[in-house]
Structures are given as structure tokens and as C-alpha cells.
């Protein structure tokens, strides 16, 4: 019989308080409701330990965003503005606080992994983070949850070489911008080609800057790309790059909007391929990090496809072989 390792699921009903202004906005609270419901009723339910996130401190956010940006974001939320920076980035009064809670989930996960309470952590959060740059909100993102978690892991626990793998359909321009010049953080992203896809970055020649050159790997896929190209990219390009880097820690920017049913990208991945991605990640973790992986939710905008893909990914990650 198939059995699974334990997964710590970090999530909070408070994440539903980030109000994006009604049903027309793709980044809906129902995304998380669907994930939770599916995981609670599915085959992984017995292997899940639910954990409440601890909000990130202001200091920990300031490691990836600048003071001025925080002040502008705070002002936009607390003064009742409807959006921050661009009309896409809908906010409400609570968004300011919830953003700290979203960024804190990854840090809570780091504490769980470092205290050896668990090895696999999935943070189901919103708002997402990978488009947010040091001083720029973008693509429904305000705080870069993944980047803040990486810095926390390094600062709090003295870990150095951290791999970030981003399989969201969109390029994580924010993660790339924050670690562009940093040789200790390897950013690998697979996404739809920047000509045809938001945010229009992530060409394959973007490979890091200065000391960070060679520590960014972008793998753009053509519109319509299906499972085959993902699996091929992982085996031919991504796994060899992970092996060369030999990470001490692994953080996954886990977005599920490349799914064929998701209308926010032109990629055409199946639910099943997320299981294969999970298994590939588990293999890296076995090789380099004693099986420890921290995954943080990014995109995925069709609740049914999103929740099924999350479940399949976690299954592939946690399956006992």
C-alpha cells in the first residue's frame, strides 16, 4: 500500500481576509478553501499536521524590501485604497497585516524543519509573493514570501547555499531581482515564454549578475507546452544545475497556474505532472538536504485544478518508496 511521509501544512483562516474586491479578481480566497478541503478529505489527510503561521517581523521583511516600500504599502492599505501600485494588485484594510502572516508562514516552516519536528512543509498562503520586488508590487504580490523565507533561513540558522525552484507558470521576477547578484542563492524558474506571458521577464539569457552570474537559471517554455517539455527540462537542465549547486536547503515557489484548465497562462500541464515534479524535488532533497523541503504557494487560479494539483504535488513529494 502507498504510504506517505508527514507533511506540515501551514495555513490560516486569516488568509481569507485579504479581500481582492469581488469574484472578478482571479486571486480569490476560495483558492485556499479549495486546497484545505481537498487535503482534509483526500489520501494525504492522515499524514497532515496543521500549523498556524507566526507573522513575520518588520525586520525580517526589511531584509528583502526597502523601508520606503513598506511605508507606501502600509499607507495604501490603512488609508482604504483599493489597489497598490497597479489596479491588478487589489488590497483592503487587512491586507497589510495578512501580508506579514503570509510571509511568516515560510519562516514558521523553517523553524519546524530546523527543530527537526518535520522535513516536509507546505505553506498555503495568500497573497502570493514571487512577483514582488524590493520596491515594487506586481502581479497580485506585495511581500516576497519566498525571498523573505530564504533570508530568514540564512540569518536565523546560518544556512548558506539555498536553492529556490519556481514552477509557477509565470517568471518570479521578484525572487530573481532580490537574489540576482547573490551566489549563495540559486534561483531556477520554469515558466511560459516572456514574450507571451506576464510579467515579460525570464529569458534564458538572464543568468544572474556579477558574483551571482550562473546562479539564476531560466527555462522558458513555448505557449501550449505540456507535460513532456517540463519533464525533459527537469531531467536535462534543472536536475544537473541542482547537482552542481548542491544546496543546503530547498525552498519551492509552488505555483499551479501552468495547469491546462488554468486560464491565467497558456501552458498545458496535467494534474499528474505535478506529482512527477514533487518526486523530482524529493529526490534532490534526499541527495542534498536529508529530505527537507519547504514549499510555499504562489499562483493557481482555478480552485478545482489548483487543489487537485497541490494534492498531487504533495503526494509525489511525500510518497514513501
Amino acid at each position, binding site marked *: 500500500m502507498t504510504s506517505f511521509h508527514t507533511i506540515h501544512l501551514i495555513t490560516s483562516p486569516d488568509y481569507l481576509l485579504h479581500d481582492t474586491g469581488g469574484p*472578478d*479578481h*482571479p486571486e480569490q480566497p476560495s483558492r485556499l478553501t479549495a486546497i484545505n478541503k481537498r487535503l482534509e478529505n483526500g489520501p494525504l489527510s492522515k499524514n497532515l499536521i496543521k500549523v498556524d503561521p507566526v507573522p513575520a517581523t518588520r525586520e525580517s521583511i526589511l531584509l528583502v524590501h526597502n523601508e520606503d516600500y513598506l511605508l507606501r504599502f502600509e499607507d495604501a492599505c490603512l488609508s482604504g485604497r483599493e489597489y497598490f501600485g*497597479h*489596479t*491588478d494588485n487589489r488590497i483592503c484594510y487587512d491586507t497589510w497585516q495578512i501580508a506579514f502572516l503570509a510571509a511568516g508562514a515560510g519562516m514558521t516552516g523553517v523553524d519546524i524543519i530546523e527543530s527537526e519536528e518535520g522535513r516536509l512543509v507546505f505553506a498555503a498562503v495568500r497573497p502570493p509573493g514571487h*512577483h514582488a520586488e524590493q520596491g*515594487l508590487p*506586481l*502581479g*497580485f504580490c506585495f511581500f516576497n514570501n519566498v525571498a523573505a523565507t530564504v533570508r530568514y533561513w540564512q540569518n536565523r540558522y546560518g544556512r548558506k547555499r539555498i536553492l529556490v525552484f519556481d514552477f509557477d507558470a*509565470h517568471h518570479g*521576477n521578484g525572487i530573481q531581482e532580490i537574489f540576482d547578484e547573490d551566489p549563495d542563492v540559486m534561483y531556477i524558474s520554469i515558466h*511560459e515564454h*516572456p*514574450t*507571451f*506571458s*506576464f*510579467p*515579460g*521577464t525570464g529569458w534564458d539569457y538572464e543568468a544572474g549578475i556579477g558574483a551571482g552570474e550562473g546562479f539564476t537559471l531560466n527555462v522558458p517554455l513555448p*505557449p*501550449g507546452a505540456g507535460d513532456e517539455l517540463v519533464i525533459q527540462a527537469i531531467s536535462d537542465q534543472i536536475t544537473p544545475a541542482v547537482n552542481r549547486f548542491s544546496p543546503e536547503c530547498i525552498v519551492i515557489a509552488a505555483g499551479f497556474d501552468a495547469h*491546462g484548465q488554468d*486560464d*491565467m*497562462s*497558456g*501552458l*498545458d500541464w496535467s494534474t499528474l505532472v505535478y506529482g512527477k515534479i514533487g518526486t523530482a524535488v524529493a529526490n534532490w532533497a534526499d541527495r542534498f538536504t536529508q529530505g527537507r523541503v519547504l514549499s510555499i504557494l504562489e499562483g493557481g*487560479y482555478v480552485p478545482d485544478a489548483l487543489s487537485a494539483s497541490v494534492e498531487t504535488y504533495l503526494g509525489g513529494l511525500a510518497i514513501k518508496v
Partner: protein
Amino acid sequence: MFVKNYMTTEPVSIRPDVLILDARKILQEKEFRHLPVTDASGVLQGMVTDRDIRSALPSSVASPEEREKIMARVKETPVSEIMSENLSTLGPDSTLDDALMLLLRSNVGAVPVIDNNGVLEGIFSIRDLMGAYGNLFGLGEKGSFLITVRAGDGPDVIARVAGLLADQGISVTRIVREEAPDGGVYLHLRVNTFNLRAVHSTFASAGFDVVSPLVV
């Protein structure tokens, strides 16, 4: 849309009496391909290229005696003897379209830009042209992507599409109409939003056929 916004200003230039070998040194050190030649008041006299200099130097198949003879002469020759003088130039009001037509026609890699008195103002290369059009088309503009719809006939199609997107609050920064070699007429739009869903539903409800990006 104007050359003056995209040209290289204050280009390095030399006087006509500069020796060929000194000009070569400048080209090599600065990794330039073109060196404008001006008089004391900055008026353009000509242009010397790395190719002009190479053809002035002795050929590698020449005999040692012949090489020596040519080199002795080159060492004393100023660039005024080898520079091109009948230059195509661009002016302060030239457009990128002017530059494109000129570069296509003239088979040179860069064109000097002069003011009405012939004083050198800048130099405009094919590379500058590519950068300029890239900028105009919004290439690499963060937060945007390209969407292509089949346009159909009718003079008002651009206005209709612009109106549609404006009504939905979707910001669009470029609309280019293309009569493609395949006979189709397309509109290419650069939209500044993450909300691909809203863009697609807007076009679908107005009966426009989205060609790319496709949502499978």
C-alpha cells in the same frame, strides 16, 4: 520617434590630420567600428571605419619588402586620405523611420547625426535603431505581455479594441496593426496587466479571435 533621443551623443571624433595608426589605436581601445572626422569647429568632414583602415594596411599575402614599403607610407598618412567623405547623414529632426530607410539603403553600420551647420551631434548605429524600436514596442517592459488578435476589416478596428480594453480598465500601451504575409490582418497589443483571464473574456465577448497567447 526621433533619432536624437536614441543616438549616441558626444561621440569620440578625430581631426583629419590624425595618422591612420593612431586612429586604429582609438578604434581598438574603445572597441568602436566608426570614427567621425571633424574640423576644429566640430564640422563633420568624413568618417573612418575599421574596414577603411584594414584596407589601407598591407595585405597578409604581400611580400616582406612590399609590406615594409606600405607600412612606411601608412605611418605618415593622415586619415583624411582614406576617410569616406560623401556621407549619408541624419539631422536633428530625423525620425527613426528616416534612419531605418537610410541604414537599409546605404549598407553602413552607423550614420553621423549633424546639426544645420554641419556640426557633429551624435552617431546613430543599427544597434541604436534596434534598441529604439525595442523601446517603442515596449520590449522587456516589466508587467506586460504581448497579445495578438485577428483584426478583420474595417477602419475602426483599432479604436474598437482600444475602447473595449479601456471599458474593462485594462491598460494597453501599444497597438500595432499588421497585414501579415499569410494574408491575415492582426492587431498586436502590449497589455499591462496580470489578468489574462479578463483580457481573454473581453475579447471573446466582443467576438475577437485571440491568436496568441492561447489558453489551452
